[in-house]
């Protein structure tokens, strides 16, 4: 029996759902192994008998929490896909501004027409069984997760930082170029995507579990970044770590 799978989207750019559709070379094979009962971006089916729920996006509207809880009740497994879902992603930057002022700044007198709350990643609302990291989520890691769930094993997700993959790819280190990079404290899995393209890692895959951020902050200091700038840079995708329990 094919497992029944649903995709849900909360506050996000929908890029992670699109990443699923961009698995072109393997999409049809994947569809042969799972039954998609809900995937609004790609299907008008709307069934609730799903076993695995993939959730994209953060909670940031009043009824999001209720919707997420309902998904948790129905699904056996909840997988957070992408930074928005895993840690709030870029959305979380909103939490560093006063909410009412934020609303008025954008919507002026109509602010009340657009209800919004503080941004919460999925794990702050419901229990998450697996996470697929990245903004957008890393395609290979999504496939690894799907395959692992199909055969019933734990997905193989790197715990080590981006530098490992960066060195395997023999990239020239951004620091040696006189630039900076968050790679030493960020979870690998993207094959050092940004450093491979000559851009420093911005941390979209979140902190590696065994990071030494204090030490990297010192290193960045030598490259002219003050500690508050390091913190600001981390807020791009990882503001949640400042409040994470």
């Amino acid at each position, binding site marked *: 029996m094919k497992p029944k799978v649903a995709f849900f989207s909360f506050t996000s*750019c929908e*890029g992670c759902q699109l990443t699923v559709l961009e698995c072109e070379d393997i999409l049809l094979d994947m569809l042969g192994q799972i039954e998609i009962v809900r995937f609004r971006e790609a299907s008008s089916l709307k069934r609730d008998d799903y076993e695995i729920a993939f959730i994209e996006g953060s909670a*940031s509207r009043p009824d999001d929490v209720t919707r997420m809880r309902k998904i948790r009740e129905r699904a056996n497994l909840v997988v957070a896909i992408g930074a928005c879902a895993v840690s709030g992603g870029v959305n979380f930057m909103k939490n560093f501004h006063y909410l009412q002022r934020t609303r008025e700044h954008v919507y002026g007198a109509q602010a009340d027409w657009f209800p919004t709350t503080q941004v919460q990643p999925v794990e702050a609302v419901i229990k998450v069984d697996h996470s697929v990291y990245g903004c957008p989520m890393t395609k290979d890691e999504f496939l690894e997760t799907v395959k692992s769930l199909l055969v019933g094993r734990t997905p193989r997700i790197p715990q080590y930082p981006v530098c490992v993959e960066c060195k395997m790819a023999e990239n020239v280190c951004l620091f040696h170029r006189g630039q900076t990079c968050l790679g030493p404290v960020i979870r690998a899995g993207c094959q050092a995507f940004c450093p491979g393209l000559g851009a420093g890692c911005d941390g979209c895959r979140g902190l590696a579990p065994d990071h030494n951020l204090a030490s990297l902050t010192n290193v960045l200091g030598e490259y002219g970044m003050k500690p508050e700038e390091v913190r600001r840079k981390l807020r791009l995708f990882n503001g949640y770590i400042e409040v994470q329990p």
Partner: protein
Amino acid sequence: MTDITINVEHIARVEGHGNVVMSVRDGRIKELRLEIVESPRFFEVMLQGRPWHEVPHIVARICGICAASHTLASLRAVEDAFKLVPSPQTVLLRKLLLYGEFLQSHLLHVYFLVAPDFFRVDSVIPLASTHPEVVKRALRMKMLANELCAVVGGRHIHPVTPVPGGFTRLNRN
């Protein structure tokens, strides 16, 4: 007197979120509403206090489907602020990225979002068995469009290489 109410909660197979509410009485539309239920993001505020070079990366996340367009628009804004004129090569390459996204977006629209309606199915999935060759061709074309974006921007969803002034790296292969 016949009353019909049509309530489409969450229109499927579109990018973005919307509801359609329509009430009809005696064959005449009484009320027709398109409700945009998109979750507001507040990028205007999120950008406050961020360094200029982050702006393209942040606003790309307005929408994953047209991330390249948002990136390019914001690059222009940042460059305007600095009175910086990008080189003709940069402009051409950016256009290539944009066209890649057009292609990708149109293919997605025609084959994945719209076609199922004409064939009265829920999604492209059943079409993969009834019209396998067409679906496979569509996937190949979409992959090509992605690759076009990737060659210039590193990837289609949230490009990495375009930065104010040019690119972090040009693909020489």
